[in-house]
């Protein structure tokens, strides 16, 4: 992103992903965001850190990205009582991020919407966990808040509250539907139920061990998070990763994508009334997980990616099995894809259901897999191909219909592409070390990690403290940008289609609630 028009110059941040950090004054903040928007930048994350102990007040960080890389705008807020400009007027997804930043750090934006977002009355409303002088009290009891949902009024309009405990085996969250007959007029989400203090927890861990916590921000994306975290550490420590380790990380990341896409395609069939699909795809997914256990030591490959490389090498016998599994899976997936495509009942449920058209997707910043199904052509693996993606050259899979059918199609396309990538990764895998020592990162440095997980771009901003401690770590899931779009995609659909639409987005609660 080019900010020279505003007289701003960025300082390059170290690391694999091209990134610059740009200090801005209050007058420049909105102008820089607007310029970014005009240049096609997208909002990645917004967070605040408490730097009062270093006599710097609070620092608002806004991460944007475009085809050139990440631009991190940094704006100093002198004290907690001064508000900062409302970014959501330019990037709508900033609304919830700003509210969450207030709940945790206690610095508000100038937005009209000051409802809490991650705060649900479990700690005093005037205490802010990420302020450095915060001390939790065991006396604080879980409480209940009254949230100001927007109500639709009119003849025959009624309200359906759902959750936080849902009917299926899914994460908790609250949905408030305003409906007339079966038709959804409005959906409002209320999240935050699985907030378990992850950012605060990071600050009590050492840099060398926190990849385990990163890998548990959202369990379904454990490889993506652990890799993003490792990338941030390696950027600060200026550590190189052995080539074989980079290839094995990509292999793990693609197998994570394969497992999740297989699972989703099964459930999408099931929610479309086709239980056969669930039985078949969940069987294939289990095959992948079992081989993961043998080859990587864990079914979901948790704790496999570590700073400096990966936890273990890949035995030749398992490499061969993974290589064999690729064409075997591909054969079955092609058969199942034909069955899905030709199944009139299923296609009837999928097509035109839960649409997020490209212009809306662009406006709201829909990202990752859902974004690609709505014409948003971003994929970090292709846009910033780090080793080994520069060699294996993934193809970007996009659709423009933005409905459930498009999200199903993108999953099928990416699944087959990931199988091709896994074959290429095994074929091109070099011998050698899989881990290199990481020197202790210097204090007060910032490092970024940015990895295209199966759901979308996973972002981690890590700031080091003295003696191997973590001063601040902000993990950011693509779901932050996508949850608000789900509210729009549901409008005009019937209530019974909600589970299907929701599943086609398949967003994380844990990764969002932190």
């Amino acid at each position, binding site marked *: 992103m080019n900010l020279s028009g505003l007289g701003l110059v960025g300082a390059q941040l170290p690391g694999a992903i091209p990134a610059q950090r740009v200090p801005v004054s209050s007058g420049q903040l909105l102008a820089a965001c607007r310029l970014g928007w005009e240049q096609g930048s997208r909002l990645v994350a917004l967070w605040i850190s408490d730097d009062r102990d270093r006599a710097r007040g609070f620092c608002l960080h806004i991460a944007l990205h475009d085809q050139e890389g990440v631009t991190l705008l940094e704006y100093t807020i002198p004290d907690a009582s001064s508000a900062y400009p409302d970014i959501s007027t330019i990037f709508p997804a900033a609304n919830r991020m700003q509210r969450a930043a207030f709940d945790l750090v206690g610095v508000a934006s100038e937005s009209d919407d000051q409802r809490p977002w991650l705060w*649900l009355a*479990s*700690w005093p409303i005037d205490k802010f*966990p990420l302020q450095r002088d*915060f001390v*939790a009290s065991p006396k*604080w009891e*879980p409480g*209940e808040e009254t949230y100001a949902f927007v109500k639709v009024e009119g003849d025959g309009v009624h309200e359906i509250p759902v959750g*936080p*405990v849902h*009917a*299926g*085996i*899914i*994460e*908790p969250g609250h949905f408030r539907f305003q409906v007339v007959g079966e038709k959804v007029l409005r959906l409002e989400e209320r999240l*935050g*139920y*699985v*907030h*378990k*203090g*992850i950012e*605060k*927890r990071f600050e009590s861990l050492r840099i060398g061990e926190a990849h*385990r*916590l990163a890998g*548990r*921000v*959202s*369990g*379904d994306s*454990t490889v993506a998070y652990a890799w993003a975290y490792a990338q941030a550490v390696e950027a600060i420590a200026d550590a190189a990763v052995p080539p074989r380790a980079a290839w094995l990380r990509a292999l793990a990341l693609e197998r994570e994508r394969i497992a999740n896409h297989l*699972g989703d395609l099964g459930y999408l069939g099931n929610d479309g009334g086709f239980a*056969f699909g*669930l*039985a*078949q795809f*969940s*069987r294939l*997914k*289990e095959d992948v*997980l079992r081989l993961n*256990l043998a080859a990587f030591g864990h*079914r*979901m490959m*948790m704790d496999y990616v570590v700073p400096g490389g990966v936890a273990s090498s890949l035995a030749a016998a398992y490499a061969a099995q993974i290589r064999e599994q690729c064409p075997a899976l591909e054969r079955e997936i092609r*058969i*199942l894809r*034909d*069955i899905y495509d*030709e199944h009139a009942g299923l296609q009837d449920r999928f097509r035109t259901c839960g649409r997020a058209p490209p212009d809306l997707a662009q406006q709201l910043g829909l990202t990752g897999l859902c974004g690609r199904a709505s014409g948003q052509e971003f994929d970090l693996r292709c846009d910033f191909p780090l080793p080994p993606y520069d060699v294996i050259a993934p193809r970007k899979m996009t659709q423009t219909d933005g409905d459930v059918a498009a999200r199903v199609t993108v999953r099928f396309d990416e699944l087959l592409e990931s199988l091709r990538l896994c074959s290429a990764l095994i074929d091109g895998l070099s011998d050698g070390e899989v881990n290199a020592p990481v020197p202790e990162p210097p204090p007060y440095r910032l490092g970024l990690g940015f990895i295209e997980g199966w759901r979308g771009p996973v972002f981690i901003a890590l700031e080091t403290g003295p003696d191997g401690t973590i001063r601040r770590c902000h993990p950011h899931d693509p779901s932050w940008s996508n949850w608000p779009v789900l509210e729009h995609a549901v409008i005009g659909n019937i209530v019974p289609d909600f589970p299907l639409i929701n599943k086609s987005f398949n967003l*994380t*609660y*844990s*990764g969002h*609630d932190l």
Partner: protein
Amino acid sequence: MLTILRQIAVTGIKTEAMPAPADENIVVARLQEEVLRTLGRALTIRQVDAGSCNGCELEIHALANPYYNIEGAGIRFVASPRHADMLLVTGPVSKHMAIALRRTYDATPDPKLVVAVGDCGCMGGIFGESYASLGRVANVIPVDVAIPGCPPTPTALLQGILAAITAHTPPKAEPESSSRTE
């Protein structure tokens, strides 16, 4: 239609044909016996995510795949705690979920079993106790059996569920069991 039937036929019955680690099939068979012997009918489970990272949920989902085929063993996941014999609870209990978890527990008819799942459910896991987390499930509701693991494998989950129904002798089984069958 023909392709669907062909695919079903070609796939075969995976629950048996699978070259699985030896104990997996045994666990399922024992579980089925125990469900029948102890409960005399199907075991119904209400799963509650009280704050997990969603990793445990993925493995609970896996129980339904053809390899583990938990429904084949007479176990069903139900949508309401009022229909449940057992609560399968994951996560460190986030403070925000504590009230919902207690309400779910209260809504489950006696005698009820509670199984805490995962390192987080058993002892708070990596998240521990904090301003936002109450740690292990037993800190919030009584727990009968805890299944460690991060996440526990489907086999470990089956073994834990089995342990819960074999070990559990409901205090007032006779009078109260009738209220569960309504």
